[in-house]
């Protein structure tokens, strides 16, 4: 079995890595990676706006944002993929590649989850920070920009990284609408070989495991570091001597 696995990898590593590119669309792990990164990067600003809307006293923004978050939390991702698959061509008047369908879905879905993380981060700061910023004369958005968000986002970095791991795992659902990515590539290999499904999909599982495990590990390390920093272990860091300071000023 191990021999089979090795030979499958030897014969198909390029397909697993980049799909049929350059003879076809970019696929495989490269596509999975690009899809995940793009999704989380684009979802991020949307998530911040949603979080602010969810904390707003104005019903006109609070309610739609809340409804959106609950729909994303309560409806399977697969169902949302079907919606986007159906709606986007209707809205823009032409069909789009599966990659775009998946990207749009993931941006919406992840934005909802990121907004919950960011919102929790903001609430965890307590009222004092906002009050202090407002007392100094910052407006709401100035206080958010310079005081609240830098702290909330920093404290929530581990959760945001975990959400990135979730996103990687969610890209596998593109398989259902034939988006060329890693799971799709494995399925292609399986369809060609026909006789070794366990080996093929075990390879797939191992690849995902290695990637997600490493990132999860990074998230926990980061979490410990941030917790230590907040507890004030920074005291250990050498403080700047006065002469060094004047030089800098």
């Amino acid at each position, binding site marked *: 079995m191990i021999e089979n696995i090795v030979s499958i990898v030897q014969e198909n590593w390029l397909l697993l890595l980049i799909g049929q590119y350059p003879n076809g669309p970019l696929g495989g792990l490269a596509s999975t990676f690009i899809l995940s990164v793009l999704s989380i990067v684009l979802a991020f600003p949307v998530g911040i706006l949603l979080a602010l809307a969810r904390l707003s006293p104005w019903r006109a923004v609070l309610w739609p944002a809340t409804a959106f978050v609950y729909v994303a939390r*309560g409806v399977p991702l697969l*169902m949302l993929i079907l919606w986007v698959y159906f709606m986007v061509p209707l809205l823009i008047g032409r069909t789009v590649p599966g990659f775009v369908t998946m990207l749009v879905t993931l941006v919406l879905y992840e934005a909802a989850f990121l907004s919950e993380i960011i919102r929790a981060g903001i609430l965890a700061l307590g009222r004092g920070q906002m009050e202090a910023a407002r007392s100094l004369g910052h407006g709401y958005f100035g206080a958010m920009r310079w005081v609240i968000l830098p702290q909330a986002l920093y404290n929530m970095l581990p959760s945001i990284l975990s959400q990135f791991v979730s996103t990687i795992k969610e890209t596998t659902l593109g*398989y*259902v609408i034939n988006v060329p990515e890693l799971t799709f590539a494995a399925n292609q290999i399986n369809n060609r070989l026909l006789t070794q499904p*366990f080996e093929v*999909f*075990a390879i797939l599982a191992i690849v*995902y495991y290695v990637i*997600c495990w490493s990132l*999860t590990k990074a998230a926990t390390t980061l979490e410990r570091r941030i917790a230590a920093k907040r507890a004030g272990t920074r005291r250990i860091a050498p403080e700047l001597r006065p002469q060094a300071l004047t030089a800098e000023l």
Partner: protein
Amino acid sequence: MSGFDVLAVLSNPEFAGMLIAGIQMTFVIAVGSWTLAMSLGFLLLVIRQIPVPIADRFVAAYVSYHRNVPTLVQLILWYFGIYSLLPEELQYWLSDHNAEVIFAIIGLGLCQAAYFTEDLRSGLRSVPKGQVEAARALGHGHISSMRYVLLPQAYRNALPALVNHSVSLFKNSSLAMAIGASELTHAVREVENLSFRTFETYAIATVAYLVCSLLIMAVGALLMKRAQVAGAR
């Protein structure tokens, strides 16, 4: 195709029947895998308490695998991979008994057990050591201090995560469609193909999913309210 008309789908006995069958199958998969996941979650928690290093390592590896490999890949591995490794008689038997549903329940259940057992464990660990010590100092035995002091607090602490993961499990039941189980999302695609009423069909299914998810969240909120102690945050 005329305008938005949910009734055009719901009043058609064939379509309505397919959707209801889909919802039923979704429930079978969700309830089945939830039961499996919760039992297994407790079992893994108990195994972790065994004071042998290998026990802890085994559970840690179990959790790590199931949390770091996408659920869909786990299902595919079960249905296309492990299925093929089984003895032939068993394969025949399974294919006569909705193999895709059985594997969906096993795959989702084993996967979610990893989340549940971690939720339970962090619930236990979040109770300060002093609580059990105080109980023991008052003369409670091991069982008694567990029963009256440790577990009620652990339950309260674990509840929010357990509820969230139960909602995920319910949503993930839709993944069973990818291995051919005829649950709700699967039924939706069939009805859509036959009725050409994509919008209506999706809307019905979305509302059905949303109502069930919100119901789970509401039950969770109710349980949390009941477990809430005055003054505690």
